[in-house]
């Protein structure tokens, strides 16, 4: 059982090397290079209105007033993970985990490896700090967004493990049961969550993989989800994407270019609840299975009636083009409304939900197939809102009345409080522990 002695670490750099700098320059023998260098990356301002593709080569800054990955133009790929903390985790351990996660997230979103030595520059007789599969890849617009589940504040049997129970926002409780919910415990809830979004799937997976590894012994994966195609646009610079029903999704989403709506509907404001969450948000995740085989043999007439928009252009059936506001009063033959009473677009509309809007950031998924030979496919719904009540109001209306319920099934559900962003030198959620 002898092991080669691990060489004592040399000078500990503050940050890992930029991957591109590493590849491009390390071999050139440039001594003393790389400590804290971000290489030649262009770092875009969060919510910049440039074309979304422009972020692929660049990155979004991790530090800021709000966490990135919310109003950031939705990237193409997702890896989402929910964690349960270890039974013996202490408050100090939890803080340390968040500090470690923050440092790693800041490095990865800047396109750097995790740790002091990264993937290949560490001691030869030690496992590499960074798992290495993102070497040579640009930051690809990676954002890493952290959230805290209700269980972090008190367990289901009321235990206050971290002295946080008194700081739990009143609204951070399990979502109610909605009609038709068929939730699986293994796809629901969690003490902590990480949303990693990027334009390259390998970059997103690299982030979750390394953050999970850092957490071993302190927090373990409870469930995770890959998403392969954004189903929402969060910036007017983005074309509206399509969900697996083949319809444009998220036409009426809250966009980064609507600062008033973002302030009013997305960010937790002063006085909403505990001060530590001001500038943060609430994240709702719902795994929505689509019975696409049944949908695919549905008449085009019914498909458009169910959604309330045309399948091609995405125009509301009341007329106009994609971004024309739906007119629910317009009637056709026999005085029946052109947009059906049970149409998804009608029931999800803010006018039907006392003005509630959500910033949706969902992704398509296909996780192989089920035992009946049907694609295990659907929409991994993510929404950010100032209060979970906004989601509950809309979802209750949809769950009771939406014609789309015939073709979907909610099988996973989770709610997290997303703390505000943090400054360099601090860590995500620091105010919660202050």
């Amino acid at each position: 059982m002898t092991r080669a002695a691990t060489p004592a670490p040399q000078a500990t750099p503050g940050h890992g090397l930029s991957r591109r700098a590493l590849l491009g320059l390390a071999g050139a023998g440039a001594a003393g290079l790389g400590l804290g260098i971000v290489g030649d990356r262009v770092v875009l301002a969060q919510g910049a209105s440039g074309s979304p593709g422009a972020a692929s080569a660049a990155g979004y800054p991790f530090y800021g007033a709000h966490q990135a990955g919310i109003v950031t133009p939705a990237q193409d790929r997702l890896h989402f993970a929910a964690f349960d903390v270890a039974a013996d985790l202490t408050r100090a351990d939890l803080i340390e985990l968040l500090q470690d996660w923050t440092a790693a997230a800041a490095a990865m979103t800047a396109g750097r490896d995790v740790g002091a030595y990264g993937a290949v520059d560490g001691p030869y007789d030690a496992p590499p700090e960074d798992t290495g599969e993102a070497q040579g890849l640009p930051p690809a617009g990676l954002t890493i967004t952290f959230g805290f589940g209700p269980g972090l504040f008190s367990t289901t049997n009321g235990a206050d493990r971290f002295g946080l129970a008194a700081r739990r926002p009143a609204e951070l409780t399990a979502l109610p049961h909605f009609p038709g919910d068929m939730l699986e415990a293994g796809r629901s809830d969690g003490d902590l969550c990480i949303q990693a979004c990027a334009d390259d799937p390998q970059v997103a997976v690299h982030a979750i993989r390394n953050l999970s590894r850092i957490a071993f012994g302190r927090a373990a994966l409870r469930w995770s989800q890959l998403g392969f195609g954004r189903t929402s646009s969060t910036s007017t610079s983005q074309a509206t994407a399509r969900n697996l029903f083949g319809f444009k999704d998220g036409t009426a989403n809250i966009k980064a270019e609507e600062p008033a709506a973002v302030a009013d509907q997305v960010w937790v404001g002063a006085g909403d609840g505990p001060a530590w969450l001001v500038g943060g948000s609430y994240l709702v995740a719902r795994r929505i299975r689509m019975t696409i085989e049944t949908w695919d043999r549905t008449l085009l007439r019914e498909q458009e009636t169910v959604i309330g928009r045309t399948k091609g252009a995405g125009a509301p059936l009341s007329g106009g083009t994609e971004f024309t506001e739906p007119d629910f009063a317009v009637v056709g033959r026999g005085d029946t409304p052109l947009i059906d009473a049970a149409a998804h677009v009608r029931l999800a509309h803010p006018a039907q939900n006392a003005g509630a809007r959500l910033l949706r950031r969902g992704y398509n998924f296909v996780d192989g197939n089920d035992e009946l030979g049907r694609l295990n496919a659907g929409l991994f719904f993510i929404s950010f809102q100032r209060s979970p009540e906004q989601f509950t109001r809309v979802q209750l209306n949809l769950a009771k009345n939406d014609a789309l319920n015939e073709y979907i099934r909610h099988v996973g559900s989770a709610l997290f409080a997303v703390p505000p962003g943090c400054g360099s030198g601090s860590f995500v959620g620091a105010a919660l522990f202050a």
Partner: protein
Amino acid sequence: MRARITLAALAATTLLALTGCVANSPDAAAGTVTVNSSADACAVSTDTATAGATSFSVTNSGTQVTEFYLLASDRLRIMGEVENVGPGITRTLVVQLPAGDYFTACKPGMVGDGVGTAAFTVSPDAAAGADATGDADLTAQVDTANRNYASYVRDQIAQLVAGTDAFAAAYRAGDDDTARSLYASTRAHWERVETVAESFGDLDPKLDLREADLEEGQDWTGWHAIEKDLWRATAESGFTAYTAAERDRLAGLLVSDTATLNDNVQNLSFTLAQQTNGAIGLLDEVASGKVTGEEEFWSHTDLWDFQANVDGAAVLYAGVRDLLIGPDPQLADTLDAEFAALQELLDAQRVGDGFTLYTDLEPAEIRALADQVNALAEPLNRLTATLVL
């Protein structure tokens, strides 16, 4: 039960003269005619076409909801139509046209005689074979099919009423064995006409709501609430049997809501589209609820429902099969074979008067049933486009 809109949404779909049926595989590229329906004109890009599949791409450039009609030479019979086109919207009408003289017209605002009525001539396709058959007979056949289906629905609901009375009486009296023995066979009458029964929006949740479909705080009544009590051995631990008073209440509501359903179906009539879509809807019910074992969560009598849904779809198909032979005999052959194959799989699971419990099925048997449902549903869903516009 899950909310459906098929019947309601398609209620406005009218049966059109059958000479206007869409062929099984229209050659979409054959000819697209663009139609611009404006406030006061109906501009059609060409006034001629060759016999066969013709697509009319109708754009509403006006400010009112519009309709487009393709009329026969008498200017009365409708060969094809597009209704409810909102301003700015484009919708396509694909129609199979024999050679002849027709008229095109738009109806912005959906009132009056329409605007821009113009002649439209279809010349014979030299390569094509026989022309369409006379349509007077077909119209009569359609009427018969519609009437027959309405009486089938009434008959099934009448049997449901009688069965429910007996079931409720046994349940009320605490005779659980009898109630359990009547449960699945009585529900079969509901499942055979499920797409019609559940089209009454307020009755369906009262009678057929599953526990997962409940809203928080909602009163749970109907078949499945009683099912859980009757099969309480399979319910979650901590479930307590209902009191006699609760049994009495649930049984009473089941009987009275079923009686209301019976009243509601007395004057129903059906269009051809409702029948073909009803068959599709029943197979969808099988695919989404029965083959997955979600419908009968405690009794596991899903195959009874499965068979009943298939029965109902087969009745609907049989009613329109004669109409299908003309336009698409191949589709009829396919459907005959696929229905038979599904029935064979179901017959293999018969036990006495009933079926194997869902929980006793082997995964491979469930998979075979699911695959056969797909094999039947894909061609079945072409029925509407083949028979109805």
